[in-house]
């Protein structure tokens, strides 16, 4: 079977020109990349340029509407009219055509038809292929948003004054560019059957009561309701419980009809309110979930906590205190609620399932500083790590280990750092038993309340070359203690180095001092 790319004659007869073009386009890397970029720009919310495009479109819509309003009673400069009638319309037309183009692939349909015909050894049916293409394009054109897009272009024909009112359709285009409006629409559309039923019911009531009030009132000279149009207008105003009072029935029969319409109106209003409220209630979880995903995607960098255990909660709190961003995934709804109460971005989901991360749509390479597997079960943490490794090989993973026997399994799952809490506590307890004062000193140093901290400062090539040796660091004015220099390449720690110790790029200074003085020292290193 022919696999595209070549427009030769593999089947013993010349290829139809449409098939040749389809194969050529399908084989063209440049064409596919261009179409993908356009599709991404128009449809992918994660594309940063889409935000710019949306903002620009919203601005054009407002300009259009302002011109329309101003034009009613004032003169608008010709330049603005030209901009409104031609430039904006052309931009909207281009956008419409591009959306129509990227919605489906005509080349794929033509090739599909050609290869199907070839398989059953019959002549290529171009019309059938074009029919399939048209059906697909038409399915897009029938969508409400596409209809609104088309209507928004109509004011291009500005000579037809009536068509100017179509500018208002440009306002409806806001639904396309504003997420919250789209969400509102999707919530209401989830109840379209109920709303449609209510609309049909209300329409029947309006029609029947309109006809009845017309029959009762039209021949009464004292009654203002003397045409069917006025009768229907009165019926709509009454059923909606607005009741302007500009037309009121004059006969007892008419008033009886009015009472029925008023009571029906209350019912219609109650039903419609309850339908909208229940739609919002049912969709609220999904709305919140969507918002959470958007918040996570908007973060530039964060720590991903998988398993909001007691330790997870505390780690998240500590990280937030340091100004770090944290995203939590936990399968337990209560844990997620608790995380949200702490002001964290949290999502209900199984950390050991690919679906959870696909839903989050995060870029591991760019956004995730480290994944923390803090579930209280080694099995769950292994599952999480394997899932993450299946998605991304490089992301740093740290996990707690509950049982020593599982250490190797966690390592095999691709976890970079395994923390066996029990062993750590054993080491600390032993240290306390031997040197309690030294232990307390180090423990106090690492406590949150301590003003004195130990920090690491990485030297870049520029700073290292300029400083030369440890003597040039001048730590004394900042009251810092240089514990040593860590060589990242050699993985060697030079404790308390002498003054003549040569500093190099990649060296990490381990300093102890007041937090604010360390910050000043860091700044000074680069400003000197």
């Amino acid at each position, binding site marked *: 079977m022919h696999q595209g790319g070549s427009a030769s004659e593999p089947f013993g007869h010349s290829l139809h020109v449409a098939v040749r073009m389809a194969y050529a386009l399908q084989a063209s890397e440049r064409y596919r990349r261009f179409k993908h970029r356009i599709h991404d720009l128009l449809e992918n919310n994660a594309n940063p340029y889409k935000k710019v495009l949306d903002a620009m479109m919203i601005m054009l819509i407002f300009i259009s509407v302002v011109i329309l309003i101003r034009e009613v009673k004032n003169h608008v400069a010709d330049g603005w009219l030209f901009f409104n009638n031609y430039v904006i319309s052309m931009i909207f037309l281009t956008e419409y055509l591009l959306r129509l183009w990227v919605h489906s692939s005509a080349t794929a349909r033509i090739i599909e038809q050609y290869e199907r015909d070839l398989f059953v050894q019959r002549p290529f049916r171009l019309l059938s292929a074009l029919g399939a293409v048209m059906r697909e394009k038409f399915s897009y054109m029938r969508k409400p948003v596409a209809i609104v897009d088309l209507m928004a272009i109509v004011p291009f024909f500005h000579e037809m004054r009536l068509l100017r009112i179509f500018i208002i359709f440009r306002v409806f285009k806001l639904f396309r560019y504003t997420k919250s409006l789209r969400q509102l629409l999707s919530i209401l559309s989830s109840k379209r059957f109920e709303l449609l039923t209510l609309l049909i019911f209300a329409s029947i009531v309006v029609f029947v009561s309109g006809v009845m009030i017309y029959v009762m009132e039209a021949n009464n000279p004292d009654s203002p309701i003397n045409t069917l149009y006025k009768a229907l207008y009165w019926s709509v105003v009454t059923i909606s419980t607005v009741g302007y009072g500009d037309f009121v029935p004059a006969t007892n029969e008419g008033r009886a009809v009015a009472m029925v319409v008023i009571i029906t109106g209350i019912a219609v209003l109650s039903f419609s309110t309850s339908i909208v409220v229940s739609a919002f209630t049912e969709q609220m979880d999904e709305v919140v979930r969507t918002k959470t995903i958007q918040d996570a995607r908007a973060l530039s960098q964060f*720590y991903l906590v998988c398993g909001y255990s*007691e*330790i997870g909660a*505390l*780690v998240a*709190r*500590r*990280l937030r205190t*340091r100004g*770090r961003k944290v995203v939590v995934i936990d399968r337990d709804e209560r844990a997620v609620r608790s995380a949200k109460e702490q002001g964290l971005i949290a999502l209900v989901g199984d950390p050991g399932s690919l679906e959870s991360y696909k839903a989050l749509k995060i870029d591991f390479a760019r956004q995730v500083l480290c994944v*923390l597997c*803090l579930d209280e079960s080694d099995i769950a943490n292994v599952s999480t790590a394997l899932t993450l490794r299946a998605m991304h090989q490089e992301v*740093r993973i*740290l996990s*707690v280990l509950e049982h*020593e026997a599982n250490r190797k399994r966690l390592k095999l799952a691709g976890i970079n750092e395994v*923390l066996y*809490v*029990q*062993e*750590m*506590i*054993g*080491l*600390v*307890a*032993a*240290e*306390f*038993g031997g*040197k*309690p*004062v*030294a*232990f*307390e*000193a*180090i423990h*106090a140093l*690492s406590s949150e309340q*301590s*003003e004195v901290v*130990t*920090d*690491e400062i990485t030297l870049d090539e520029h700073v290292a070359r300029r400083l030369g040796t440890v003597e040039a660091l001048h730590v004394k004015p900042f*009251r*810092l*203690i240089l*514990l*040593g220099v*860590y060589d*990242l390449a050699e993985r060697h*720690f030079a*404790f*308390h180095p002498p003054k003549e110790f040569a500093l190099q790029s990649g060296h*990490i200074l*381990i300093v*102890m*001092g007041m937090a604010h*003085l360390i910050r000043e020292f860091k700044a000074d290193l680069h400003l000197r």
Partner: protein
Amino acid sequence: MESTVLIFGYSEYAVQIAKQVRSLHHVRIFVHTDGEAQRALEDGFEVERFDFSDRWHDDAQHYDAFQNVLYCALEGREENLFLTLSLRDAFVRSTIVALAGNHEDVHKLKMAGADKVFPIVQMTADLIVDLIEKPIVTDVLHKILYEKSDLQIAQITITKGSWLCGKRTHDLLWEGDLEVIIIAIVDLELHSTFVFTAKGLNHHIDEGDILVVIGYHGQIEAFRASIGGA
């Protein structure tokens, strides 16, 4: 005389504590279930059974001494509280260390008489944050504190007549050429509070102060000898 460490319970925490201290101290494990007793015996420890109704006074006569440490590491939080309270009543001189699951228990265990409480969750969270935020510092301090490397942390008490008496910390840290680094001083005049040398206070060193120093083993011993420290 070798100090004795009594460990109560044989949870995974207790196992690790026992393994860490057995090379330096005489270790006895007190357990209250057969399973724990069997595991501790298999690991080669001396094991004794206890009951929560025990009065402990006989054991206290044998083991209550200032240099001895008791670790309360039972799995049940209420049992651990009860045990700490009971032990404090009998062991007046020993240091009691207790493990706490959360912050609430820390306070209760201290009220029950523990000298030192390790809040497991808090310590773990701190360590995780340090590991991911300052991996190099954490690694270096871990090696100094817990690994059997030549680089160590030590505490040295200033004795009467030491050449350090009357000196100021600034002179030692930034003017002198000590081979060790003094990171903190416990000042008896200031009610045994820590004075971090890096805080910048020019502290006056007196007899009885305890210096917390980091250095290589040989350097620390030479420094200890030179100042006549204990």
